[in-house]
């Protein structure tokens, strides 16, 4: 909790946006005379905008025996709370979409993939009343890269990567950490970077997704 005066002491939790509250004040003088007041108020409404920036191929998962260039398909889900999906972007093609963790000159977009160019349009979400069930906003990502021999290789920032995350709660590492307090609760373009790792030990396909998060209170 933010306070206007250094002489004041903060205790307890932050307030949730869009909720009705009551503030009760008590002043007491040195003789024990006292006066009270109460103020009903409503915290401002939270608006979150997610701009998808880049998917970075950290390791394209190449194995001995793979023939030709690496290819993959990707999914990005925006989660509100544990399981509610606000948006799902799907792009790439496991047979034709090129990826490379060490691209040749002129082919850098195979390592640093613009998400806007892949149709990942921004998501704007207004939460009228924030509660513990809808407070968190998270990004889940999954990729599947092709192998010439053996099974194709999934990678995700949730477990198990071999499944779509329908029943997987949003992991802590996938959630945006909302700042709180008078000076810092609103942010513009704060990066949220999530990392997808392979499910199987020994596999190497790994990538990050960067999303810029803007939080406003209206």
């Amino acid at each position, binding site marked *: 909790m933010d306070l206007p005066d250094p002489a*004041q002491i903060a205790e307890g939790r932050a*307030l949730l946006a869009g*909720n009705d509250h*009551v503030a009760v004040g008590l002043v007491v*003088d*040195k003789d024990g005379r*006292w006066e009270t007041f109460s103020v009903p108020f409503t915290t401002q409404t939270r608006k979150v905008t997610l701009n998808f920036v880049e998917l970075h191929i950290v390791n394209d998962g190449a194995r001995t025996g793979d023939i030709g260039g690496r290819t993959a398909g990707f999914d990005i889900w925006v989660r509100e709370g544990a399981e509610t999906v606000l948006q799902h972007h799907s792009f790439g093609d496991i047979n034709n979409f090129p990826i490379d963790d060490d691209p040749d000159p002129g082919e850098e977009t195979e390592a640093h993939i613009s998400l806007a160019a892949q149709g990942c349009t921004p998501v704007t979400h207004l939460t009228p009343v924030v509660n513990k069930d809808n407070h968190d906003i998270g990004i889940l990502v999954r990729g599947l890269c092709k192998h010439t021999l053996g099974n194709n290789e999934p990678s995700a920032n949730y477990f198990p990567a071999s499944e779509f995350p329908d029943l997987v709660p949003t992991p802590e590492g996938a959630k945006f950490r909302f700042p709180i307090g008078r000076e810092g609760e*609103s942010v513009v373009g704060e990066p949220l970077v999530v990392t997808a790792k392979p499910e199987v030990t020994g596999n190497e396909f790994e990538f990050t997704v960067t999303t810029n998060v803007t939080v406003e*209170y209206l």
Partner: protein
Amino acid sequence: MANPLLSASPDIVLVADPTPGATATTEIHYIAAGSGRPQVWERFGLQNWSRVPLVPPKIIRSDSNDPDIDGYFSKPMTAGQFYQVRLYHDPDINPNDHPDEPRSDAEITIASLLKSGRITPPIASQDRPPPGSPPATLIASKDNNQGGTWYRQTVTTTVPTHFFLQVGSERDFVLNAEGNQVLETVLLATNDGPE
């Protein structure tokens, strides 16, 4: 001001006797936060913190018959005082050296009021007392604003005061032992000076 580890009964002390120096008593109950011996500190106002010896006669009883697990002690208060208690588990923490970090496992603040000292601001100017008498109201002005995750309250008083502010939703209100409505969770407290 309920806390599973630290509680006071009553959490607002009402002194019935208006004689200066008269006291009323609150009783503190602490419960160890972990397996270690609890570390309890206390202070009046903004004085230095003092460690509470967790042995009889200071500890008057214990639900577990072990003051290292839980215990009760009482504190007499005169009207106008405020009293704070903190509970730590680390014996090396001295809140005088590090007031806010690390956070205590629990903290409570108890105000002491003169039972007959409630001031209701006068409505009409003719109700105001003559010059030289105590101010008819403590609160000269107040203002507030809020964002999405915070609330700010400013109060200007006519004399130096302690200032307590509790914020919660309406469902957080509970009846205390005196039958007064209070908020169960303290979010903000305190300012002990004039503004």
